[in-house]
């Protein structure tokens, strides 16, 4: 019966813990948080660690001897387009190249993991009202925040340790391996701390994640300017936590003190969050929701959908526009860059299937952009599914709104958003590619535009498939992401595994990748459009015939 005595002693012991905020119940909340977040945290861990491992292996196979690596590193140092995205190269050892490829990217991914975990465990819980239920039990005011940070911290430290282990197992020196792991973990902690602050400042989880995510993007952009070439303003790197991650120079100078500085920043941010938390009420925030209009101009389902999707739509369009511009800048430099590695050249040719390397690269980046746009399409249908599972669809359908009107309210944006984003991406890619090669609106422009736009039917097919799943078996909704991932793997990896063509053909992606840049594969496009139409037709009929889910 020691459990009966535990809570009171907890209060006594830990009320001194954070000074102003008692931490009673921390242990229970921490275990609960780990349980709730175990799948996302395992996914983040696997994604980051496996990428590092794959990078080590890839560099070993592609550039086995130091001379090749030195040549590769030299060609990259002279190419700002690459260093803007991936950061500077401090050493051309396999470890150094891995740190270049995964140090910044891994840090950014760890930062995302930190942001999601902390906001989900704090502001999301408050927003849903669940935190209030917990707050009424003998749990200290600081316990939820501390538990959220501890959950994120556990995962991030675990990721750091595993990254170091993977590098050491790959034959790299211990010091650099440990520092690469440390820098990834520390960057994650900084943004976990930042998210703890934004979760106090904003009253919705979406805004808290958005603000922390925007600051992550800003950090990435600031250090990108610093890395835009040897002439870039190097000091800018020190204004960005992700710049610090680069300055650690794992496998080169191994600057431990920069890691210490990063951890200190994380601690400082947590202290700010604690101070903010001590001065606010449960469920409220420092920036309370502003009052809005007392009367509404929303009169219809499309109006409502536009209102709820417009932010997302603009974000997708801008992101793919920027991505298209970057791609346009990269494709023509790929030829010279990759000549150092026969292995990589072969890999890319396999991926795209074009004879000319530039064409292959263009096709490959087109495929990646198409995949991103397909995620947008599936997510829009996901919003409809969420509208139903949270009970709002029921309220709408109890008015004079037909099933078709509600469903098409989301299916039209499902078609429009990826189409618009891919067109913008294509225009940007084509323009930049064209200006760098044969003039603004020459064949290069057309190739860039086509590489992106040919993906539109693919995104529609995935969106229509999502609509079908929602209409026929809403409880199977998560399966759509598995199907999507399966198709991506089939198309990306299938050819190198020499899978039979009929199996590759299952994926809608297979049909437009390849020599799509010079010639539009009209047959494939036609087939995909017919499939989209058929899937949507069945989805419309299916949604009209089934029961509406209730909460």
């Amino acid at each position: 019966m020691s459990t009966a005595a535990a809570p009171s002693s907890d209060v006594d012991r830990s009320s001194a813990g954070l000074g102003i905020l008692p931490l009673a119940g921390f242990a229970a909340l921490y275990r609960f948080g780990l349980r709730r977040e175990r799948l996302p945290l395992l996914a983040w861990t696997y994604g980051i660690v496996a990428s590092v491992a794959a990078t080590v292996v890839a560099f070993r196979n592609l550039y086995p001897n130091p001379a090749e690596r030195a040549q590769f590193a030299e060609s990259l140092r002279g190419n700002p387009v690459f260093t803007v995205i991936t950061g500077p190269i401090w050493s051309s050892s396999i470890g150094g190249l891995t740190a270049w490829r995964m140090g910044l990217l891994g840090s950014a991914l760890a930062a995302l993991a930190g942001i999601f975990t902390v906001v989900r465990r704090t502001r999301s819980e408050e927003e849903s009202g669940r935190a209030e239920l917990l707050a009424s039990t003998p749990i200290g005011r600081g316990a939820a925040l501390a538990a959220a940070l501890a959950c994120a911290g556990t995962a991030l430290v675990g990721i750091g340790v595993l990254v170091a282990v993977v590098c050491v197992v790959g034959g790299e020196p211990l010091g650099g391996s440990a520092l690469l792991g440390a820098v990834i973990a520390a960057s994650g902690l900084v943004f976990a701390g930042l998210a703890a602050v934004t979760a106090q400042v904003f009253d919705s989880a979406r805004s808290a994640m958005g603000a922390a995510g925007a600051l992550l993007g800003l950090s990435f952009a600031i250090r990108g300017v610093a890395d835009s070439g040897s002439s870039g303003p190097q000091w800018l790197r020190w204004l960005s936590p992700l710049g610090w991650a680069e300055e650690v120079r794992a496998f080169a100078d191994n600057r431990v003190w920069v890691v210490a500085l990063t951890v200190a920043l994380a601690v400082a941010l947590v202290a700010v969050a604690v101070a903010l938390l001590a001065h606010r009420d449960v469920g409220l925030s420092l920036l309370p929701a502003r009052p809005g209009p007392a009367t509404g101009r929303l009169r219809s389902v499309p109006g409502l959908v536009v209102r709820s999707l417009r932010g997302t739509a603009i974000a997708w369009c801008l992101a793919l526009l920027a991505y298209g511009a970057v791609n346009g800048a990269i494709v023509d430099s790929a030829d010279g860059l990759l000549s150092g590695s026969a292995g990589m050249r072969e890999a890319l040719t396999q991926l795209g299937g074009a004879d000319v390397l530039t064409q292959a690269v263009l096709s490959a980046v087109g495929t990646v952009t198409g995949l991103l746009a397909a995620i947008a399409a599936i997510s829009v249908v996901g919003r409809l599914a969420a509208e139903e599972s949270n009970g709002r669809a029921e309220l709408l359908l109890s008015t004079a709104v037909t099933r078709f009107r509600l469903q098409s309210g989301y299916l039209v944006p499902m078609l429009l958003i990826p189409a618009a984003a891919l067109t913008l991406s294509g225009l940007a890619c084509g323009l930049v590619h064209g200006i760098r090669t044969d003039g603004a609106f020459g064949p290069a422009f057309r190739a860039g535009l086509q590489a992106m736009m040919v993906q539109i039917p693919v995104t529609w097919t995935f969106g229509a498939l999502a609509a079908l799943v929602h209409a026929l078996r809403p409880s199977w909704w998560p399966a759509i992401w598995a199907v999507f991932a399966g198709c991506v793997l089939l198309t990306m990896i299938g050819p190198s595994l020499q899978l039979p063509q009929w199996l590759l053909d299952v994926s809608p992606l297979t049909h437009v990748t390849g020599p799509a840049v010079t010639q539009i594969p009209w047959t494939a496009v036609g087939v995909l459009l017919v499939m989209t139409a058929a899937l949507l037709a069945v989805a419309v009929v299916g949604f009209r015939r089934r029961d509406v889910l209730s909460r």
Partner: protein
Amino acid sequence: MGADAELVIEMRDVDKSFGSVHALNKLNLQVRRGEVHGFLGPNGAGKSTAIRVLLGLLHADAGRSRLLGGDPWTDAVSLHRRLAYVPGDVTLWPSLTGGEVIDLLTSLRSGRGAPTNAGRRDELIERFQLDPKRKCRTYSKGNRQKVAIIAALASEVELLVLDEPTSGLDPLMEAVFQQCIRQAVGSGSTVLLSSHILSEVESLGDRVSIIAGGTVVESGTLAQLRHLTRTSVQAQLDRVPAGLSELPGVHDLRVEHTRVSLSVDSNELGKVLAALTSAGVQTLTSRPPTLEELFLRHYDQPGDPAPSPSADQQ
């Protein structure tokens, strides 16, 4: 046809299963035009499922449902112009204000055009003391319910379908709600009011249907239902008569010294009174059962505990 015409809601032998769960089991429900029909039952009895069938959100497996003279599944949209629905668990759009949601719902309900009578909307907002400028994410459960109630009442429809509409309202607002319902009925609306707040149904309801296990177990006016049920008797006696618990129709017997309380089936009341009288009555109260007692009796599934020898337990 004549009898049918006055039925606003008619469900006959309606079945609905979700997998192996029989949510509705030969459900019968009749609601007449112009009445407030109380729909009573505990959580999981099938109230919300029945309402969702009536709204055309669920397709019944068997049976016949008519709503305002139409088929709730095939004529859903045209019927929905003539009714308003308040769900039991109201979720709203977090980034819209209460006022925006009210206007959205009333416009959608009318099908097209203006969000109905602005004066009536403002009057309701005033009466329910709702701040329409606040974002829905900042509303409490009660306030979200107010938004749905105001949107429903502002629409001035023939039929109000209310699924436990007041579970989040404070007593003051509940009184306002009852006033508004009486007004709506006064101007010709019919109301289906599902609830387990029995006093609410007692003060508003003309007729009541009690649902348990997906079946309407009893239906009628409050007076009719009471007629079918027991009378509660409390008496202070000189001495406790022997064999009181053996008398037919006696339930829930409690004896405390010479104080007796029991409930008795109405047709057996005479014999019980005779037995009590013979034991020397000092005081006697008898009253019809409250709806609570009716309610408890129907959902006491394992059956009434037999009047046990340990009748003197507190």
